[in-house]
């Protein structure tokens, strides 16, 4: 690897200055994408900015309104936060489908998001959850919805010198829950053929009051399928509403054919997974007798 420097900033300001000062510098979180890409010659990184020594970037804070997950927090740490698991089980399970225990002890959701793979497992769950990310850059801080970050495979909307500092999950509303499922040929250590995340709220009568559905590996980026959520809202999850939801999901798919799955398979499977995921989220929300 032809790297010229390895930086270990201790503040966000230092990290941003290093990134802004060298267009070839890349943030390093867990390295489970970046180091693989450097080793195989697929990365143009000229210098590394390790963000793991920045105070406050590793850990989960509850800010009263929700959760602030530092960009350098490894996926396995999410499972150890009981309040986070109770509020956002789908996000935690999605992040903990990534790779192996060895990989998850390093991999972060921020890295999963910024690597911009359409098959990134935590991203559909985060999008369904309505998560946002905090971005620090040369012109200050901004906050954008998670779905605004990936724009194409391996491309993000981050500007020169910018980095994600945290992922924010909103407060869990009463009667709500979430879930994530993916389809893979093995049970572990594989890339999603299709993934689906669902976040729903159910009232005391079992009627869906809100729903957000997102799909992965079915288009160049993870997609928020707004029509799928609308198809469920106001329904009691009857067959017609579920089928309308699945149809909206299938309509949103623009997948590729590859060794993992054909276009037809991915589209059909996206509908199936979306239905299953909604049913799990509904059960978790207490919406089934």
């Amino acid at each position, binding site marked *: 690897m032809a*790297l010229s420097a390895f930086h270990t900033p201790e503040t966000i300001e230092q990290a941003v200055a290093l990134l802004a000062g060298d267009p070839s510098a890349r943030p390093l979180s867990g390295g489970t994408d970046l180091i693989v890409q450097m080793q195989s010659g697929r990365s143009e990184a000229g*210098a590394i900015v390790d963000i793991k020594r920045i105070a406050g970037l590793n850990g989960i804070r509850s800010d009263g309104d929700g959760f602030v997950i530092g960009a350098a927090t490894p996926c396995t740490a999410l499972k150890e936060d009981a309040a986070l698991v109770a509020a956002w089980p789908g996000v935690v399970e999605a992040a903990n489908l990534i790779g192996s225990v060895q990989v998850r002890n390093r991999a972060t959701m921020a890295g999963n998001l910024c690597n911009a793979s359409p098959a990134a497992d935590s991203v559909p769950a985060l999008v369904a959850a309505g998560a946002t990310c905090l971005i620090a850059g040369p012109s200050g801080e901004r906050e954008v919805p998670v779905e605004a970050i990936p724009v194409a495979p391996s491309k993000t909307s981050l500007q020169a010198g910018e980095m994600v500092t945290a992922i924010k999950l909103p407060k869990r509303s009463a009667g709500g829950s979430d879930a994530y499922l993916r389809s893979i040929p093995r049970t572990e250590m594989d890339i999603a053929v299709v993934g689906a995340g669902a976040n729903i709220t159910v009232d005391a009568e079992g009627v869906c009051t809100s729903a957000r559905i997102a799909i992965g590996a079915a288009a160049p980026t993870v997609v928020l399928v707004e029509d799928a959520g609308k198809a469920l809202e106001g329904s009691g999850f009857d067959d017609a509403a579920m089928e309308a939801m699945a149809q909206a999901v299938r309509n949103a798919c623009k997948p590729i054919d590859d060794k993992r799955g054909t276009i037809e398979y991915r589209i059909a499977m996206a509908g199936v997974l979306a239905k299953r995921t909604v049913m799990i989220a509904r059960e978790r929300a207490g919406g089934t007798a």
Partner: protein
Amino acid sequence: MSKLHVTTSVNGDEREFLCGPGETLLDVLRDELDMTGTKEGCGSGDCGACTIMLDGEMVCSCLVMAAEAQGRVIGTIEGVAEGSELHPVQRTFLDHAALQCGFCTPGFIVAAKALLDRNPDPTETEVRYWLAGNLCRCTGYDKIIRAVMDAAAELRQERTPA
């Protein structure tokens, strides 16, 4: 390209080394510190042969930059036995013939010990999921799983070593 000076703890000893900014911790362990117990199978996080402990968590050393080790606590396969006293999981690997070529074994032992240190009573399913990031092309895994379950029983003192 200037070399970085790194001080770290390896198996309880303070170690120092110089590394390039693009070197992995696996490279340094094997080539600088002459600790060749940790193996390189794939170099891409898939096989687990390079598994080590970093600040108490198991990771693939091929996916850790050497410079990241500054001030960290590292544990490798060389630190699993206490002197000539094998760790129970090392002994049960021998008892069950849970290895053939042995290339995957250091990674499996480090990973299995990490599991048993936190949970000496895992189910077989838990063991299989925990070890999903370790590949073995020889044994077919079954003997490895038996060895880990047996080591767990020994650690719970339900079985006395033969």
